[in-house]
């Protein structure tokens, strides 16, 4: 079973990460295209139209190769994750259906006008279509991110023991949960960072090649301020994400920080090298070979109070620490016991219902409801299963923050140089750095998802369903087979995309 869980996770991760190669550029480049075309609309200068059409061509290639790659995830829900799909179908169904109807129709209608409509519809109508395409793509992301946020912080539902499904009781609580809103803005804005980095990187290549210098410089002048605004807002919403993680998923925060034993006035680890797990078990107070700390910052970021106690992994397992609202959380063992009671109560309820024993059904239901918050712990056999991979979460988080900060300086520098008399092309090393920024932006974007998804393990739905209970009883070999098929298919598609993309870039404006 352990192998099956790992392969199912690996397959889902592969598909999601592949899908996420296309989404950020669609959302990010879309905004740049919208702004450039708006300038064309205002100024009526043909060079802005040329710039718009060039970036639109790259947008089109990315959109076409990426389209429908997300559907494969939905295939996997039905086959590999059937327990999960059943358990949450009612919650997940609504956002995904809205996404399908709203976003699909918005995108598919207006993208045609975007590409076919030059000289056929008015400039104003074309511009509207472009912005509506961008808006449609963002709305599409909105619903998926709301669904993902619900998995991290399940809210607005009740569990129906007759159908064994969670049923949505408050749509707005799901759609407007603070975690969802923060996630939406953080993710969409980070996509703008990718778009800006791609635009600046490709333009820098033209500068190095001494081709289309004027148009490339104009593109950078548009992308750099968008990049700065986007990265600043991404940092701001990232802080909001970390704050929510501290409140709702303290284990994830502890893993992000490599914090095994909590402390008041906790420092943030700016950089660090973790010891192997075995060594940490012997002495959990110093899990690092070396680290650079920023005093008080973790307490402040997590709880807006420099004196706040930030629980470590072992504190969370032991449960013996006061939270900010003053209560002592249950230990892992207590939660596991509560989860077992919940699962047993579900079983008793259904048996009593079949036997027509109304009294027993009612008391079992009360027991289930009282313990439902820990339902997923009933599948956990050892406390150690509740700890996500600390090295992956820790290093992915640092990579995201450090390289994200690099983009703040890079965009800032590019914006500043835009006001100099002979900007950009004089700085060859900087141009190369901008080109290197393109893959780096993708890696940062992916690492954000790694932090979010690896850091919440073992949960598919926080506290309610671990991955172990979410997967279907399939043969491991069949999951491995489809994993290999996806690897081949995705590699071929990626090569096709890169080949077409590079060809289009080489053609120039």
């Amino acid at each position, binding site marked *: 079973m352990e192998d099956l869980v790992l392969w199912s996770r690996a397959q889902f991760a592969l598909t999601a990460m592949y899908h996420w190669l296309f989404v950020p550029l669609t959302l990010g480049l879309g905004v740049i295209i919208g702004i450039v075309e708006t300038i064309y609309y205002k100024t009526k200068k043909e060079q802005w139209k040329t710039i718009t059409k060039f970036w639109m061509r790259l947008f089109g290639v990315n959109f076409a190769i990426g389209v429908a790659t997300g559907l*494969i995830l939905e*295939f996997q829900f*039905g086959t590999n994750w059937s327990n999960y799909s059943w358990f949450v179908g009612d919650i997940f169904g609504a956002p995904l259906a809205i996404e399908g109807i709203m976003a699909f129709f918005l995108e598919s209608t207006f993208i045609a006008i975007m*590409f076919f409509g030059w000289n056929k519809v008015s400039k104003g109508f074309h511009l509207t279509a472009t912005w509506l395409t961008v808006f449609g793509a963002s709305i599409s992301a909105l619903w998926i991110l709301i669904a993902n946020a619900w998995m991290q912080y399940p809210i607005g539902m009740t569990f129906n023991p007759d159908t064994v499904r969670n049923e949505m009781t408050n749509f707005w609580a799901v759609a407007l949960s603070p975690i969802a809103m923060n996630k939406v803005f953080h993710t969409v804005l980070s996509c703008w960072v990718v778009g800006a980095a791609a635009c600046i990187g490709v333009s820098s290549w033209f500068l190095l090649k001494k081709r289309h210098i004027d148009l490339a410089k104009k593109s950078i002048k548009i992308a750099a301020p968008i990049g700065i605004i986007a990265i600043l807002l991404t940092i701001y919403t990232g802080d909001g994400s970390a704050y929510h993680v501290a409140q709702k998923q303290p284990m994830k925060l502890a893993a992000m920080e490599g914090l095994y034993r909590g402390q008041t006035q906790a420092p943030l680890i700016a950089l660090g090298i973790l010891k192997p797990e075995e060594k940490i078990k012997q002495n959990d107070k110093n899990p690092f070979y070396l680290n650079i700390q920023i005093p008080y910052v973790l307490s402040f970021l997590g709880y807006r109070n420099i004196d706040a106690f930030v629980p470590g992994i072992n504190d969370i397992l032991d449960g013996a620490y006061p939270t900010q609202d003053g209560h002592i959380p249950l230990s892992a063992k207590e939660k596991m016991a509560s*989860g077992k009671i919940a699962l047993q109560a579900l079983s008793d309820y259904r048996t009593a219902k079949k036997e027509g024993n109304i009294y027993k059904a009612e008391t079992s239901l009360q027991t289930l409801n009282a313990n439902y918050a820990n339902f997923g712990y*009933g599948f956990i056999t050892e406390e150690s299963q509740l700890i996500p991979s600390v090295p992956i979460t820790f290093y992915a988080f640092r990579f995201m923050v450090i390289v994200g900060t690099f983009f703040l300086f890079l965009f800032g520098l590019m914006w500043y140089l835009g006001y100099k008399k002979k900007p950009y092309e004089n700085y060859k090393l900087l141009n190369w750095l901008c080109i290197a920024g393109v893959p780096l932006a993708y890696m940062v974007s992916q690492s954000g998802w790694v932090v979010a998804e690896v850091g919440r393990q073992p949960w598919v739905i926080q506290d309610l369903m671990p991955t172990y209970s979410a997967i279907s009883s399939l043969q491991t070999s*069949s999951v491995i087979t489809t994993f290999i098929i996806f690897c081949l298919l995705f590699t071929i*598609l990626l090569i096709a995309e890169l080949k*077409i993309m590079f060809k289009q870039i080489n053609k120039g404006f």
Partner: protein
Amino acid sequence: MNVFVKVFRFYYEGFRSMTLGKTLWIIILIKLFIMFAILKIFFFPNFLSSKADNDKGKSEYIVNEMEKRAVKP
């Protein structure tokens, strides 16, 4: 001119005058064919539908699976 005819012509001429778009459409169609005609049918059947015909049977199956995987008290 009828609005539907206008829309049809808009798309028709748009598709006809495509250059790069033709390659992209070929890739999209091949991809969709692989996804729906091969992957979905042969590798990604609806697992629960193979276990039960109706919602009641599916919920029974899920409960049984949960009981199997739950830690025994």
